[in-house]
């Protein structure tokens, strides 16, 4: 998978992801979020419109990253999930834990 980090407002970043979030890419995803949070941007938006496949390894990476963001005083939000990602979020009930926004800008702007 590819991850492009966009530094948004102070303390926030949008991670534009594409490809697959599975057991192959999950470690890279976790490391990328950890670095963004460690660099002082604990409000993390994960933009998923370009992710055509996510599985339980990907969900685990999202949950781990959510915890890392919250421990640093921030949070993690999902933006623009594809149909497949939305299916997996719903089946796993993670749509109740991870707040989903229509796009990256909406997720960042709403952060008060």
């Amino acid at each position, binding site marked *: 998978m590819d991850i492009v980090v966009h530094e948004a407002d102070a303390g926030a970043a949008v991670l534009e992801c594409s490809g697959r979030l599975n057991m192959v890419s999950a470690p890279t995803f976790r490391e990328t979020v950890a670095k963004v949070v460690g660099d002082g941007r604990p409000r993390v938006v994960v933009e998923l419109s370009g992710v055509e496949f996510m*599985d339980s390894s990907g969900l685990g990476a999202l949950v781990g990253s959510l915890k890392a963001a919250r421990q640093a005083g921030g949070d993690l939000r999902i933006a623009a999930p594809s149909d497949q990602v939305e299916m997996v979020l719903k089946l796993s*009930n993670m749509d109740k834990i991870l707040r989903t926004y229509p796009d990256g800008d909406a997720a960042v702007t709403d952060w008060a």
Partner: protein
Amino acid sequence: MNAAVGGHSLDLACPPDDVTAVHAFLATVWDTEPTVSAEDRMALELALVELTSNVIEHGAAGRGVSCSLHLDVGSDAVEAQLTDDGVPVPVDPSAAQLPDALAESGRGLALVQMVVDDLRYERVADRNLWTVRRGRH
């Protein structure tokens, strides 16, 4: 890695192979089976990648694992068998449940159960055999 399209079979040696080969294999299967719906493709890709991930993660026991995936696309249902030479699996897949919301693992088999009509695990001789069946929608 060895893929025989037409028979819809894939052999994997992990490492170096990983689930990327399963994604690529399924893309070739769907190309030759264009009547399989998008919903069925999504469900089967999730189920088969989850099962293969489990085999690679738990079956390898530090020495690598070989596995074979076979897919039969029928007019009413798609059936798949995944066999591997890894260690026996000590779980009852039919009892798989979602873990706590903030757990970072343990969702794989529960998700497979949700997207297939039948999921079975057997130990046959010295191999694990996973069988899934999904009625076509």
